């Protein structure tokens, strides 16, 4: 098995996620971009786990999934409550917490 393809895929996914997060204003989309970056990282972890023949990477991938699930719960709740009060899901509108 050649790990390069998997790693390239992982890098592509992460780049899409990162670029998407910085360019898109919709909070839901930004959120999905975050998930994309997390899963890209998971893919890399699993790949390296396979390469080195050890389970550490896979175990770590599980941890990331658990954290991601928890994050989704909290994050979606926040997005919804912001939408309810401000009638907007744009991340640029929620800019009151600053200097």
């Amino acid at each position: 098995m050649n790990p390069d393809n998997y790693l390239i895929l992982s890098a592509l996914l992460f780049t899409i996620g990162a670029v998407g997060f910085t360019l898109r204003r919709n909070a839901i989309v930004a959120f999905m971009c975050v998930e994309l970056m997390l899963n890209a990282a998971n893919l890399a972890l699993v790949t390296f786990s396979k390469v080195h023949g050890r389970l550490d990477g896979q175990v770590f991938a599980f941890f990331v999934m658990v954290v991601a699930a928890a994050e989704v719960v909290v994050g979606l709740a926040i997005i919804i409550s912001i939408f309810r009060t401000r009638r907007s899901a744009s991340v640029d509108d929620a800019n009151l917490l600053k200097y």
Partner: protein
Amino acid sequence: MNPFSPALLEVTPATGIFAWAWLLVAIPLVSAAILLLIGKVGDAWGHFLGTLAAVATFVIAVSMFVTMLGTDEAGRAQSLQLYDWITSGSWNIGVGLQIDQLSILFCLLITGVGSLIHIYSIGYMAHDERRRRFFAFLNLFIAAMLLLVLADNYLVLFVGWEGVGLASYLLIGFWQHKPSAATAAKKAFVVNRVGDMGMAIAVMLMLATFGSSQFSAVNAGAEHMSPAVATGLGLLLLLGACGKSAQLPLQSWLLDAMEGPTPVSALIHAATMVTAGVYLVTRSHAIYAHTEWASTAVVIIGTLTLLAGAWIGCAKDDIKKALAGSTMSQIGYMMLAAGIGPAGYAFAIFHLVTHGFFKANMFLGAGSVMHAMDDDVDMRHYGGLWRVLPITFATFACGFLAIIGFPLTAGFYSKDHIIEAAFEHNQVVGILALVGAGVTAFYMTRLMLMTFAGKKRWQKGVHPHESPLVMTIPLIVLGAASLVAGIVMNSWISGWLAPAVGGGGHGEGGEAHAPTWYAGFTSPVGLITLAVVAVGVVIAFGVFGPRREIPETAPATRNPLTIAGRNDLFGDAFNETVFMRPGQALTRGIVAVDEGGIDGAVTGTAGAFGGLSMLTRRLQNGFVRSYALLMVVGAAVLGGVLVLSQLG
């Protein structure tokens, strides 16, 4: 062995009544505490408790004195160890009392005159609503002063020394509603600090040199110390003595101290506390025996002060300030005698005791006059008072005769000895002391004539009346003491004090001094002194005689001597230009360096960081996507660095 170095005083542990010596300090201290803490309940009887405490200490002191008279010479000096105070390393400083021939005389003077002044104050302060507090302070003073003279080491002495300073401060400023009194109290305290500094350093030097501040250890070690240490100790102790005893150059506080109630002036600023410096020098005789320089400094300061005080006394119209100048001058005599060495110590103490009587007497007399004249102190508003204040006049006259050295009165004996000793020591000093005696006669006669003789110059609405018995009885007792104290103690005191002060009445050269009651009439110096005193009195009669007109305001004068005298010899101006202004300039300079330099650097650095963070915090703009971009860029840079370092 140095022929001057005295035989050391043998001190034995206290027995019998001497084991109760601590009561002397404890009784007035407890009484003061009660009076201060009890509140208004004590207003009705507080003054009686205070007086009772003073009288109780007097009774104890007298019974100790009588016991000591009955003891043979070897057993007279006794020490009483109370408890360990400081134990640190090789130092072990205990609180102990030493009752010997010197301290018992002081105890008698302090408690005796103190009791009389307590009694007098009952009348004098009768209309003051803070009388209870006044008696508390007086008792505090008695306790501190007794601790000062009873202590058996310099550190405990220093506690008493500061205690009397505190009492003096509280009592000068007793009428604190008067700004002048508050200022005077502060001034006395500050000037005394200068002297206390010398005293404190002296104690440290003793601890460093002898490993102990106990009199016995210091006396024993004095022989082996280097001349430099001896001179240093002598001069530092002299500085302390100058502060407490209002000697030049620390004299400026005493005249202002007259702002306090008159009984305070009599007790603290005439009879007892201001003589503590003389006590200190006498107590440190073992040190001064080894340093010619410091002893000479004591003589010079004593001589200068006796002249300066007399000069001020001549120029003042305020009766209390004239007496204060006279106090300075008389203490100058004592200092002079103490500086002469073993030949003079007993005379210094002799004059100290007689001065305590006659000066307390005159101050209380002045208080009685003020009482009659509605607290007016200007002698130009007095005149002709002998008729309305007969008792005050008679007792004041006793004090007057004693201070000018009228034959057979107290001053005749005590001052004559000092002048004779001064002549034996140094002709110049002797002549100056003689001049001082003449000037003393002049200004005291002036004071008497202006107050009691001549025409009435009373202000409107003043109706003088004699003081109540509670005030006149102490006057009578002190007046009698002023007359007879000299002749009683004259032939006895030198021999009595000899073991405690080293030399004097004993040993070679001492016997020649064993004085007789008529010595003042036979020795040439005695006769010259009498003549000089007579001249002083005659001049005063010529200028201020009963027939002379005395203007009600001090006439303007161009005489520089008079102007200097009226301005306390410009002591305040001197302090102001030499110490205060440069001191203020220095303080201002330091403040400028502190604010401009040190604070500037600190606040400047803080400001720079503050400004920098004002700039960088703009990055925190609230847009999540810009944060994300920064993170990505940061991570990319970090990754790049890692990769590049791997390649390198």
